[in-house]
């Protein structure tokens, strides 16, 4: 059981609207009847301006629990996910303590059964304490329900350790999710190395710091024929390396965040700590490469890398601020407003990469809109315009890069594992 959440009664309800399920090739007006949590009927003739889409799956969320419950809890983080249209999320293990033992994982799973609003999976660390040295007890962790393994927040610095982790992970049948960063090249870096870093004097974090590790990690995955998932890609060179590896059938998947798809390092000129993230926002040609790879499917997942931070930690000079922004509650609307409406990426592509793509990458059940399937749905009002404000979040943190922005497209209802978990 990889995904767990609060138990509750399955719902019975009827939805009407334009059903858009790109992975199934559906785009038509339908009436969807859910009985006891299961889709029992699809009939033509639905009215209304709403779109009904397969629920979103976020493979990269920081729930900050255990250790920083002041920033996010299982309850608030999953409520934010529900409000964002997500029917499943995967939480990162870089908590305090690190999720590197069955004991810590077990207690999280238990808490999730009490608190989690949407089905939640927990990744466990690749190495003990994420120190990059000894391997965590991956077999036992997988047995206890680890969704995947990652040292996210840090790379596995040693190629030898990562190689052993890849080999050992055969016992688990779970992918390794990799944060690709050569620390020797990114050290002291706050923003992309380029004209903006030169102008502002901010420490530079070059594209190469990511792509050199992407190359290394893909080479190891090819050698060991083990599945890897590349997290939050940001650089054009990383995309090139990924596509080359995919062409030679290396078993790799990759994700990109909404902020890397929408913004460039130009945004950093404001010195607003809410545009400081790791990896950093990069140049326009990097963003173009990410969008291309998303369209082509080389990058099959959109992941928020939802990273809540306490207000006082972000209300500091840019250079002192921690990396990371929230994203669960704004992901769809930001992509719809900035990519779909201007015609940059199609709605179908965005919906597929928010749902079926990540589900496949992590071996989760794909949310499908078909008779007999468990209802995992998001209902979207594509006409709605709304403004992102601090008091509008269910997340416990407000470090959004979209504060004050008016967005189009709004999640109005979320059905996760047969239950209504959000209604606007």
């Amino acid at each position, binding site marked *: 059981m990889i995904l767990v959440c609060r138990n509750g009664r399955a719902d019975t309800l009827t939805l009407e609207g334009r059903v858009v399920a790109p992975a199934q090739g559906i785009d038509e007006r339908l009436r969807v009847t859910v009985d006891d949590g299961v889709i029992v009927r699809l009939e033509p003739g639905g009215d209304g301006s709403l779109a009904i889409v397969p629920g979103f799956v976020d493979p990269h969320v920081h729930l900050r629990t255990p250790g920083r419950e002041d920033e996010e809890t299982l309850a608030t983080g999953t409520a934010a996910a529900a409000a964002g249209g997500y029917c499943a999320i995967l939480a990162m293990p870089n908590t305090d303590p690190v999720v590197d033992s069955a004991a810590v994982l077990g207690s999280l799973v238990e808490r999730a059964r009490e608190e989690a609003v949407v089905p939640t999976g927990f990744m466990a660390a690749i190495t003990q304490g994420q120190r990059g040295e000894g391997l965590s007890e991956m077999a036992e962790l997988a047995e206890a329900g680890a969704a995947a393994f990652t040292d996210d927040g840090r790379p596995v610095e040693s190629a030898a350790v990562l190689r052993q982790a890849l080999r050992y992970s055969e016992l688990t049948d779970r992918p390794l999710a990799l944060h690709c960063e050569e620390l020797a090249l990114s050290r002291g870096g706050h923003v992309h190395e380029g004209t903006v870093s*030169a102008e502002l*004097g901010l420490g530079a974090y070059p594209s190469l710091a990511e792509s050199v590790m992407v190359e290394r990690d893909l080479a190891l995955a090819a050698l060991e024929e083990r599945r890897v998932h590349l997290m939050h890609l940001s650089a054009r060179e990383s995309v090139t390396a990924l596509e080359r590896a995919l062409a030679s059938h290396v078993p790799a998947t990759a994700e990109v965040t909404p902020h890397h798809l929408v913004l460039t390092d130009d945004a950093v000129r404001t010195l607003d700590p809410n545009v400081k993230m790791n990896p950093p926002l990069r140049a326009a040609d990097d963003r173009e490469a990410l969008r291309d790879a998303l369209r082509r499917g080389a990058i099959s997942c959109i992941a928020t890398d939802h990273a809540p931070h306490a207000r*006082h930690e972000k209300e500091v000079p840019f250079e002192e601020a921690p990396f990371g922004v929230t994203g669960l509650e704004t992901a769809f609307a930001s992509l719809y407003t900035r990519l779909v409406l201007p015609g940059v990426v199609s709605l179908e592509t965005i919906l597929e990469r928010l749902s079926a793509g990540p589900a496949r990458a992590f071996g989760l059940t794909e949310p499908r809109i078909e008779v007999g399937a468990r209802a995992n749905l998001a209902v979207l009002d594509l006409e709605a315009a709304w403004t992102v404000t601090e008091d509008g979040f269910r997340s416990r943190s407000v470090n959004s890069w979209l504060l004050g922005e008016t967005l189009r497209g709004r999640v109005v209802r979320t059905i996760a594992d047969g239950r209504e978990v959000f209604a606007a």
Partner: protein
Amino acid sequence: MAELLAPVVRRHLLSIGDLEREDVERILDTATSLARSLGREVKRLPTLRGRTVINVFYESSTRTLASFELAAKRLSADTMSIRSDGSSVEKGESLKDTALTLAAYGPDVIVIRHPSIGAAQLVSRLTDAHVVNAGDGKHQHPTQALLDLYAMREALGRLDGLHVAVVGDVQHSRVARSLVQALALVGARATLVGPPTLLPPGIEALGCAVSTDIGAISDADVVYALRMQRERMAPGEAFLPSLREYTALYGITPERVRAGQVVMHPGPMNRGVEIDPRVADSAVALVTDQVRAGLVVRMAVLYDVVAQRPVREREPVAGERERSDASPVLTGTPDAA
């Protein structure tokens, strides 16, 4: 015309990038009038009487802090200076809380120096005061750039068309970043010269030429030496093999200075490293002129942020920016020294 209706917001000096050419020229002209009036036995002007200027310095400073204090006093403002050592900063108070605390005293201007990029921007978002950036990390030191322009204009009679070679550790220099932007604004040309490891990739986007050859200074009207910091040689940093090699390759020696060139340095100097003492002590060095310029330019900046209309919030409308110039500074009865 919608711009005309844009809300008037508080005016700051956070970055040279926020200024237009006419802003720079107005400030320099104000400084010139101030210098003239100060020369006439008048040591104090009533311009900012009743106003309060607070200097908050999180980094050590001699000339910047002294000149801001003195500038405020010469304009009859009430002024006080807070240094991070000996203040609540030592007790772990955040910049936000320090800023809010000082803002509660109702200052008109907060002058801030801080080691972290973005500190002045943060303070400007948190308070109602006009904020002047007196240096934030490696980012900006706009009043230094303005005083450098002022000293150049005094010494050479013009700025338009000047060629300035900035030599040394550009990578870590807020002075270089501010100066290059300011030079571009007034129609001067800049060439950055230094070892490849201390020239940040992408810096030419600021509109300057870049060279690793000290010979590139020969064409310049002004040779501007930057301070070289010893920590750049620290193990793991590896920007330079040694100071000795730096000095051999890039030190400003009498042999490298052509007749007719002037030499500048923001201070504090490392004599014998980036600048030969024979140059530093010669008539071509404008170092003390720069210090003198610092006082009048900072007076002009304090006056400007308090008294002038906001920049950047709207496009200038034809005719609108006609000289409201420096003369208001000098109205009122000068106090006797």
